[in-house]
């Protein structure tokens, strides 16, 4: 037993768990308020008021929605495949949330206020138990981990989320769900290719897949040395950015690529037969996916936590990061209020016949420029 306890590095484990808890609560709040923001912004675009009754200006609306979802009757239709029907929302949500451990919220050496005092107190506490702890909380890093294969991890979790949709659509035993599930997952697989290829331009410049290091390489020019402005790769990076944005919208099943779950087309697509909390899980997973692609866009193309003033005031890093992520989320909501949706065959044609060749051409261009100038 003592060898078991000795073989675990408790400081690292507990630190990671605390960070995961803090980040998870934060991401859940951001997702909930993205739903609220979407309803208000869509209301402004459509010349009406959004929800503004619950709390000041409707700010407590997400909690009211959550309570409604919890207390709704949980219907399981008779003809469904019970195991897979219950498992599908879980399969969608868990990989979507697992990505948050690689989000680089801020620099790697942010000074924690009262960090030295807290470390001192904890070390004394440990000494009073006879254990010699060596905790140093004066500087913390604002990411849970910086994996060597961070970007591949993000793509892996995105690939796993497809199963929930196809299994949920099939298990519901209804033709709308099956069609919606198959179409949605086929669309996600097709646009995943263009998404992954478009990122290569950034990787050739960065030379690493580690998201924290990619952001660190964008420091400079008073916080504006972003990947889309850097010499020599600014042209491939700008093309890659446009391809990435279009593929990201298709990947998360948002307008204008949301035929598989549109209300006027397929009842509600793969989540037709889902009610109350299971539907809430699907809904939450879609918004967490939106958050993931927004975070990836700011990390790879817009410089992550870089901005004016971050070298001196390290806590401005997360502020800039969140500002850019919120800009992308606002862009998604804006597109939802403005554009009509594509037909399914137009969507698939666009993905395979336009975006994929464009992404391949971009890879060749980025490699050529990389060989010549890097």
């Amino acid at each position, binding site marked *: *037993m003592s*060898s*078991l306890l000795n*073989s*675990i590095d408790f400081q690292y484990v507990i630190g990671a768990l605390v960070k995961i808890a803090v980040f998870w609560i934060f991401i859940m709040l951001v997702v909930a308020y993205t739903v609220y923001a979407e309803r208000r912004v869509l209301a402004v675009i459509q010349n009406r008021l959004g929800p503004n009754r619950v709390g000041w200006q409707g700010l407590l609306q997400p909690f009211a929605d959550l309570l409604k979802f919890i207390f709704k009757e949980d219907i399981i239709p008779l003809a469904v495949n019970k195991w*897979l029907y219950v498992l599908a929302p879980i399969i969608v949500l868990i990989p979507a949330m697992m990505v948050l451990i690689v989000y680089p919220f801020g620099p790697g050496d942010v000074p924690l206020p009262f960090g030295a005092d807290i470390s001192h107190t904890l070390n004394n506490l440990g000494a009073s138990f006879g254990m010699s702890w060596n905790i140093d909380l004066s500087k913390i890093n604002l990411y849970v981990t910086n*994996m*060597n*294969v961070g970007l*591949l*991890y993000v*793509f*892996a*979790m995105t*690939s*796993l989320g*497809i*199963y929930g949709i*196809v*299994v949920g659509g*099939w298990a519901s035993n209804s033709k709308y769900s*099956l069609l919606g599930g*198959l179409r949605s*997952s*086929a669309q996600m*697989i097709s646009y995943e290719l263009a998404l992954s290829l478009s990122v290569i331009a950034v990787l050739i410049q960065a030379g*690493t*897949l580690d998201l924290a290091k990619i952001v660190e390489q964008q420091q400079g020019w008073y916080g504006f040395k972003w990947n889309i402005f850097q010499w020599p790769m600014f042209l491939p990076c700008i093309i890659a950015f446009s391809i990435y944005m279009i593929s990201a919208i298709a990947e998360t099943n948002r307008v204008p690529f949301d035929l598989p779950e549109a209300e006027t087309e397929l009842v509600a697509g793969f989540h037709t037969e889902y009610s109350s909390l299971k539907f809430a899980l699907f809904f939450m997973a879609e918004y967490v996916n939106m958050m993931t692609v927004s975070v990836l866009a700011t990390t790879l193309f817009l410089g992550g936590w870089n901005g004016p003033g971050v070298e001196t005031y390290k806590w401005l890093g997360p502020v800039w990061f969140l500002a850019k992520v919120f800009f992308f989320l606002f862009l998604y909501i804006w597109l939802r209020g403005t554009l009509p949706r594509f037909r399914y065959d137009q969507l698939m044609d666009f993905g395979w016949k336009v975006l994929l060749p464009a992404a391949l051409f971009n890879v060749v261009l980025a490699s050529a420029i990389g060989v010549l100038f890097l």
Partner: protein
Amino acid sequence: MEFSHILFLGLAALAVVAAFNVILQRNPIYSAIGLIVVLGSLAALFLTLSAQFIAAMQIIVYAGAIMVLFVFVIMLLNVRAEETRMDKQKYLKWLAAPLFLALLAEVMAVVRYVNLTPQPLPSANGAANPQEVLGTVENIAFGMFTDYLIPFEAASILILMAIVGSMLLARREKKEDVERIENALVAQQEEEQKYEEEVAV
């Protein structure tokens, strides 16, 4: 009994249980889900063996693309649960378990006589943590594009052949093809008839 031992035993048990699920389930969808669980636990085991890139590749390629293909085909062909061979030929039930144990004993006997002293990992160019260098993207990429370039290019040509081949094999027969074949058969029969008439004359 360290934590890494417990982690390995947990993941290995999960993999074995899911593998039994793959072979014993009647409904192919449940077999597919079992196989996805096996792939996931194997990816975690690759991580414990310092193979980060291969673990990520396993999830992206195997569990994220190949198994999606399997699941799509099962759904498109609407495959239902059937009787397994063990229901039809009942003597197989008594034959499967001893066969399993015999094969397992044979493979374990081979494993027993391999020299298994672990060697320390190389510190590639004086890296700070030599244990982590073995499976990193840089190391694998360096090997792939220098020593193993030809297998890499051959694999890419193989995948191109697979794309073209699978599209060709799985497409429906077009009406023009069917008509062309029928016309060719009719023309051949007419030629044979003419030949027989000439011979008879």
